[in-house]
C-alpha cells in the first residue's frame, strides 16, 4: 500500500503560501464560474398537502358533499377560473396567476399510489415505480449524468442542514447548506484545513472520495459565503424559516452564483386534525414568501430563466374525516412558476370527483412527465437515461 508523502509545512502558516496541487485543482473549477442558463427551484411540501382545499373546485357539489364542514365556501374562494379558485390564504399568489407567471397541473400522481408518507416521498424523490426501490434521487442521477457544470459540488443546493434523497446520486450529490455563515464557521475548522493542506492525492479510492468531499465542502463553503455577501435584496421577505430560505436563494441567484438547482422545504401539511387553520397558515406562509420571491427574481431579470416547481408526496382523501381533517390520499396539484411559461394558468381540467379509487383521486398525469420535461428542456439532460424509461414530455 502506498505511503503518504506530506508536504513539510507548518499547519497554520499557510492559507495562501503553500497550496497543494489537489486543493488548487478543486478551487479552480469552482470559483471562476458563475451562473449559466436556466435555473430550477424545487419546493417540497412535506406531509401531504390537501390539494382540494388549495385549489378549490367551488362549482362542484360533490366537493361540498364530501366536505360539509371542511369545504371552503364558494364566496370565500379566490376565484381564478370559472370552476377553480385559490384557498383564501393564497391572496398574495393571485397577482402571479393573473400575470401569467403560474401554471397549475391538476391530478398529478403515479400508478398504484402508496399512501405512506415515507414511501410516497421516496417515489417522488427517486422517480421510481411504486414497486421499485432506488437509492438515488432523480436530481442526483442528473448530477451523475456528466451534465455541464455538474463537476461543481454546489451545482444543486438544498437550503437545509441535511440533504434530501432527491439530490443524492452515486458519484455526485447535491450540497446542503442552510446558512452560509454557519457553514463557513464549521468548515473554517483549523485542523480540517490543516489536514487537507497536508493531504496528497495518492490514496485508496474511498479515502480519496472522503478527502475530495471535504476539500469540495471547504471550497464551496468559501464560495457560497462570498457569494452570499455580494447582493443583499432590497425587498422584504416575510419572517420565518421559509421566507429566509427563499431570500437566501434569491440572493445567491442574483449574485450569479454557479448554482443550477435550488431545493427548499416547507413541512407540516399532515392535517388529520383541525386542518382549516393549520393549512391556511402554511398556505399563507408559502404564498406570501413566494410572491415576494417571484417579484424579487423578476426585478433582477432572473424570472425568465427560472422555473419553480412545488410538489407534495400526495394529496388527501376527498372526504373529510371526523376530526375536521383529511387522511392520506393520492393525486395532487403541482405548481409551476416562472417568467417564461408556455402554458399559463390551469394546465389541465379540474380533478374528477365522480370517478374515485377507494375514495381517492385517480391521477391524470404521471409526475415523471414533468420531471422528463424539466430534465430535457431546463437542464439539457437526457430524461430517458436519468428516469430509466421514456416519459412523454408536457408543455412547460
Amino acid at each position, binding site marked *: 500500500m*502506498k*505511503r*503518504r508523502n*506530506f508536504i*513539510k*509545512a*507548518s*499547519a*497554520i502558516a499557510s492559507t495562501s503560501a503553500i497550496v497543494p496541487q489537489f486543493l488548487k485543482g478543486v478551487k479552480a473549477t469552482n470559483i471562476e464560474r458563475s451562473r449559466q442558463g436556466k435555473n430550477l427551484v424545487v419546493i417540497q411540501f*412535506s*406531509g401531504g398537502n390537501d390539494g382540494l382545499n388549495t385549489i378549490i373546485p367551488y362549482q362542484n357539489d360533490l366537493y361540498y358533499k364530501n366536505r360539509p364542514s371542511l369545504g371552503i365556501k364558494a364566496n370565500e374562494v379566490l376565484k381564478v377560473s370559472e370552476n377553480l379558485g385559490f384557498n383564501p390564504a393564497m391572496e398574495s399568489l393571485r397577482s402571479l396567476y393573473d400575470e401569467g407567471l403560474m401554471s397549475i397541473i391538476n391530478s398529478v400522481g403515479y400508478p398504484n399510489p402508496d399512501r405512506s*408518507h*415515507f*414511501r410516497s*416521498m*421516496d417515489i417522488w424523490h427517486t422517480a421510481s415505480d411504486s*414497486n421499485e*426501490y432506488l*437509492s438515488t434521487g432523480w436530481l442526483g442521477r442528473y448530477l451523475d449524468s456528466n451534465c455541464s457544470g455538474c463537476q461543481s*459540488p454546489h451545482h444543486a443546493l438544498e437550503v*437545509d*442542514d*441535511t*440533504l*434530501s434523497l432527491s439530490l*443524492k446520486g*452515486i*458519484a455526485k*450529490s*447535491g*450540497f*446542503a*447548506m*442552510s446558512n452560509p455563515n*454557519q457553514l463557513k464557521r*464549521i468548515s473554517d475548522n*483549523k*485542523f480540517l484545513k*490543516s*489536514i487537507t493542506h*497536508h493531504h496528497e492525492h495518492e*490514496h*485508496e*479510492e*474511498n*479515502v480519496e*472520495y*472522503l478527502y475530495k*468531499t*471535504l476539500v469540495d*465542502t471547504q471550497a*464551496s463553503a468559501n464560495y457560497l459565503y462570498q457569494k452570499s455577501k455580494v447582493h443583499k435584496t432590497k425587498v422584504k421577505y416575510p419572517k420565518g*424559516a421559509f421566507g429566509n430560505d427563499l431570500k437566501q436563494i434569491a440572493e445567491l441567484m442574483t449574485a450569479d452564483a454557479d448554482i443550477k438547482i435550488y431545493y427548499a*422545504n416547507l*413541512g*407540516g401539511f*399532515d392535517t388529520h*386534525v383541525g386542518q382549516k387553520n*393549520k393549512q391556511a397558515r402554511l398556505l399563507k406562509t408559502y404564498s406570501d414568501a413566494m410572491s415576494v420571491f417571484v417579484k424579487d427574481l423578476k426585478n433582477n431579470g432572473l424570472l425568465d430563466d427560472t422555473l419553480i416547481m412545488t410538489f407534495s*408526496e400526495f394529496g388527501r382523501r376527498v372526504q373529510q374525516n371526523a376530526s375536521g381533517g383529511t387522511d392520506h390520499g393520492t393525486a395532487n396539484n403541482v405548481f409551476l412558476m416562472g417568467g417564461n411559461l408556455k402554458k399559463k394558468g390551469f394546465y389541465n381540467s379540474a380533478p374528477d370527483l365522480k370517478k374515485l379509487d377507494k375514495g381517492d383521486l385517480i391521477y391524470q398525469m404521471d409526475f415523471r412527465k414533468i420531471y422528463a420535461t424539466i430534465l430535457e428542456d431546463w437542464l439539457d439532460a437526457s430524461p430517458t437515461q436519468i428516469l430509466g424509461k421514456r416519459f412523454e414530455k408536457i408543455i412547460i
Partner: protein
Amino acid sequence: MNTQQRLQHLYWRAGFGMSPKGWSSKKKHSTQKAIDELFKNAHQASKRKVVKNGNGIESSEMGMSSKADKKEKRKQNKIRVGAHNTDWIMRMGNPDESALLEKMTLFWHGHFACTTKIPEWARKQLNTIRQHALGNFRELVLAIAKDGSMIRFLNNQQNKKRKPNENFAREVMELFTIGRGNYSEKDVKEAARAFTGWSSNLKGDFVFKKRQHDFGQKIFFEKKGKWDGDDIIDMILEKRETSEFIARKVYRFFVNEKIDEQNVKYLAQIFYDSKYDIEKMMRAIFESKWFFEEKNVGVKIKSPVELLAGMIRTFEVDFKNTAALIFIEKALGQVLFDPPNVAGWAGGKSWIDNSTLMLRLNLANVLFQNSDLNIKIKEELEAQKRNKRKRNVQASVNFTPFYNLFKRENEKLLLDKMGGFVLQTKGKLNESTFEDFVIKNNKEDLVKTMCLRMMSLPEYQLM
C-alpha cells in the same frame, strides 16, 4: 501485515473494532484463535440474550382506543422502538457482548429491511434474526416470512386467495433470496398464491389463515404442484443463484464493496454445499487468505451505526440522553428499525455528502466535549413543527483504558502506535499535521488530544 493489523481488521469487520481492554488481552492471540473465540462468544450469546423492554410494559396494537389515546400510544411506541434502537447500539458497543453476533444481526437487519413501529414486534423480529443470524439461511428466511412486522410491512396480511397481494412474494425473491433476473412475473404471481393466508395476530405472532390460503395447483419455476410457502422457499434455495446472491451481499458488507467474482463464487459454493449454513460461509471468509489482503483492509466506509458502535466500544461512551443518539443516527442517515425502504441502506459512498461528512468528522469532538450538535435534521413527514436546531449531546467517555494502552509509549513513537490502533488505513501519519493541534502539557492530554484529532481524520471513517 502484522498480527495486530490482522486482529484489528478481523475485529472491525466481524464486529465493531477492538476495545482497549480487549486489545490488551487478545494481542498475543493468533488470528485463528481470535476467529474461534468470536464464534464461541456468538454461540453463547445467542443462547442467553433476550432484548429487554424499553421501559415498563409495552403497548402493541391500537385497538379500540380514542383518538387522543392513539396519539399518546403512538408517541409511547415511538419512544420504545427508540429504546430498542439505542439499547441495540449500546450492545454493539459493549465489549462484553458478542461482536460477531451483533454484526451479523445488523447485516440481516439491513438485508431483511423492515420498518417497525410497534416496540414488542421490533424486539421479536430482532430476536428472531439474532437467533438465526449464524444459523441456517433457510430457517432464517422462513422465520422472517412468519414474522409479524415483516408480514405487515409487505402487506402479506392482505394476501388472500380471492385477491392475492404480490408484495411479499416479490420482495422475497427480488431482495431477500435470489435477486432480479432469475424469476418471471408469472413466478411472482404463483409464489404470492402459495403465501396466501400467511398472516399474524395482534401480538405479531404468525397465524396461518386456512380459509385465506390457496391450496390449488401452482406452477413455480416451471414445476407443477400444490405448493405452499415452505415449498416456494425450498425451490428458491435449490437454485445456485440464491447462494450467489447472498454471498455477494455478504462479501460487499464484510469484505469489500468492490466484488471479486472468484471469491464470491468460492463462498457461494460453500454456502450452497452446506445447505445454506451461514456460519460455514462466515468462517470461510475470516479464514481465507484474501480477507487479509491489503486491498481489503481499511477500504470500507463505516455505516453510521458502525461508526457510533465503534466509538462506544473504544471509549465506553455513555449517553445520558439517548434521544441524542437517535438524533445523530438520523442526521447521518441510518436509523435502526427504520430503513429507507425494503431494499435497506445502500451503504458505501451513499453515506457521504457534505453535511454527513462534516458531522462525522466532528463527531468525536461532540462526544468527548459534550458540545452541541448545531444541526437541524429534516422533520418527520407527519411533524407539525420544524425541528429545533441545537441538540445537546450529553455523553460521558471513559478515556482511561485507552490512555493506559499508550501511557508508557515513547512520545516519538506515539503517533505511529496510536495511529495503528485508531485507524485502519495504512498511510503513515505525519507529525506536522498534528503538531499545532495537540496539547503537550502532560502525557494524558497529549494522548487525548492526539486521539481526538485522529478521529477527526477522514481516515477514521474507514475500516
